[in-house]
């Protein structure tokens, strides 16, 4: 997993509550055998005017010009701003995979669905919970200022605004550690690789037949 230290980037405003995982990535894409390549289908139903299909090339599809991701001013956004209960719905990891593949590294909302919140950390995305009033102010500033950027620093747990003011945010210490060091579950386990190798060596002496089978 990519290390997360600080992100400085354009903010894209998705001004609605209860954005569910089907909205993030519609269910016809769950049948795929991949975990990458979902970016072009992120928010598929909001972004395009036709129906998306797993094998369809998205480049020539009719765009919904109203949808913010289709507006040039939000191109290359890396911070997504939304409202309460973001990520409700399915437990599958396709939703964070799609957000990550599109390029979002930070999601700011007033609350998140539990499983989605966990899945974000597993996939190198930082979800940040802020008060409703702070979120309201951010929406107003983002929408009125073209090229609006935020700098999110995980180490100091601070978001810096263009006017120089800062917003502090909370993050679980263990998860912060994992993100800063780029540790997903696998990375974390592999920190114990010597221990695993040591176990394996002893185990092989004890039960060698488990190691010479099948090849």
């Amino acid at each position, binding site marked *: *997993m990519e290390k997360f230290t600080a992100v400085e980037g354009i903010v894209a405003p998705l001004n609605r509550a209860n954005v569910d995982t089907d909205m993030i990535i519609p269910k016809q894409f769950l*049948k795929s*055998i*991949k*975990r*990458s390549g979902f970016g072009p289908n992120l928010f598929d139903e909001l972004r395009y005017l036709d129906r998306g299909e797993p094998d369809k090339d998205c480049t020539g599809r009719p765009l919904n010009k109203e949808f913010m991701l289709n507006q040039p001013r939000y191109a290359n956004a890396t911070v997504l701003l939304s409202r309460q209960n973001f990520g409700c719905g399915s437990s599958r*990891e396709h939703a964070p995979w799609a957000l990550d593949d599109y390029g979002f590294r930070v999601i700011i909302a007033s609350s998140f669905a539990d499983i989605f919140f966990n899945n974000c950390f*597993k996939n190198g995305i930082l979800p940040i919970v802020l008060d409703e009033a702070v979120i309201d102010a951010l929406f107003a500033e983002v929408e009125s200022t073209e090229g609006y950027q935020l700098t999110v620093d995980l180490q100091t747990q601070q978001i810096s605004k263009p006017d120089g003011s800062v917003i502090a945010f909370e993050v679980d210490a*263990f998860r912060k550690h994992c993100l800063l060091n780029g540790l*997903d*579950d*696998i990375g974390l*386990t*592999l920190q*114990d*690789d010597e*221990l*695993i190798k040591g*176990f*394996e060596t002893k*185990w092989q002496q*004890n*039960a*060698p*037949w*488990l*190691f*010479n*089978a*099948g*090849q």
Partner: protein
Amino acid sequence: MAGKTLYDKLWDSHLVKERDDGTALIYIDRQLLHEVTSPQAFEGLRISGRQPWRRDANLAVPDHNVPTTLKERQLGLDGIVDPVSKTQVLTLDNNCKEFDLLEFDMNDRRQGIVHVVGPEQGATLPGMTIVCGDSHTSTHGALGALAHGIGTSEVEHVLATQCLIQNKMKNMLIRIDGKLNVGVTPKDVVLAIIGKIGTAGGTGYAVEFGGDVIVNMSMEGRMTVCNMAIEAGARAGLIAVDQSTIDYVKGRPFSPAGNDWDAAVAQWQQLHSDDDAVFDATIELKGEDIKPQVSWGTSPEMVLPIDGNVPDPTQESDPTKRDSIERALQYMGLQAGQAIGDIKLDKVFIGSCTNGRIEDLRAAAKVVEGHRVADNIKLALVVPGSGLVKEQAEKEGLHKIFTAAGLEWREPGCSMCLAMNADQLGDGEHCASTSNRNFEGRQGFGGRTHLVSPQMAAAAAINGRFVDVRDILKEGA
């Protein structure tokens, strides 16, 4: 200090590390892979530039999507009509090539349902920890192995680290003492258990099955029982190693031989719960009380003995239960109070990782021999659990008995157990099925599944409805 349960022993011997967050790292000896739950795990490895930790610990086989008619099968990958199914099978082939893992591909004679193939090859051995991205991995516990079904992220985790992150489960013992009556099978035993404790009864437990009935049961029968531990909510089912286990394992392709064999047997003989081990829960059943079982509803716990009547929701005082009975009756198209024997059947399916082994096929063949499939049965499928089961059955002439009676003899795979390939139920059709799940739509949209033993399915095929196979076997005796 109290002794250890079998689960405790397997856990302790594979414990790599207890972590601060309360979880533990457990070393995994064998990972079985199939085409449905592995693609994203392999892609994860590719994205992060990781390699499998130990190649020889893995064995892959496509099973869920493979077609089961000979004609389609001979076409190889081109025989798979559905593009998603085909991609999944092809992806497994490619991933195994890229990462250099052993695969029995679609037309390998050793191909079959992953839970049939593992024990058959000796790739499942006593004392192992075994995982597979499939909930019926509990099957392998029949050999005294700790076997868990896992999710796709965990498949990737095991590929990359050879470890699984786990919380230790509690211990449950289910004892079935006494003797089974003729015509009552391991499938009936496990359905009766689920009927008694419910589909959540084993949640959070590793369940060990014991008692005379289990001790006297064949290895394949034990696999049937452990297979459905997950339907009782238990991620892992377990049975102590005894002489039957050791005899079963001997001489299989992956089994130890020579000096290793003696050393292995000495270790395996310790794989039972100590006499003074303490279980967190114990359930007892009497073998004599168990009758042939038939599920009537949309959950495996909605099961009755063959002479039973479908429940009447008005007799149920608990509103949630009443509601679920009503919904199940409606989906299944049944009347409250209707006799099990009065359910009209349309199809019969004999196969799956629960009942697709040679003993199952022998038992079913014995019942249909010399009879014809009833007129109202539109399709009766017999799908062997693996290529080797198929070969053995043909050597014994079982396929001739089935086809002479009007049942179709197919190529190995999961088939109508979950209807990911072309073998499906039509809307509203009732099926006597030897598989393990009767959820809504499991065997096809609107399909109605009744879970039974192979003997009961065979008897249903020739009678067009459910009959008590004990009567038939008595007459035949």
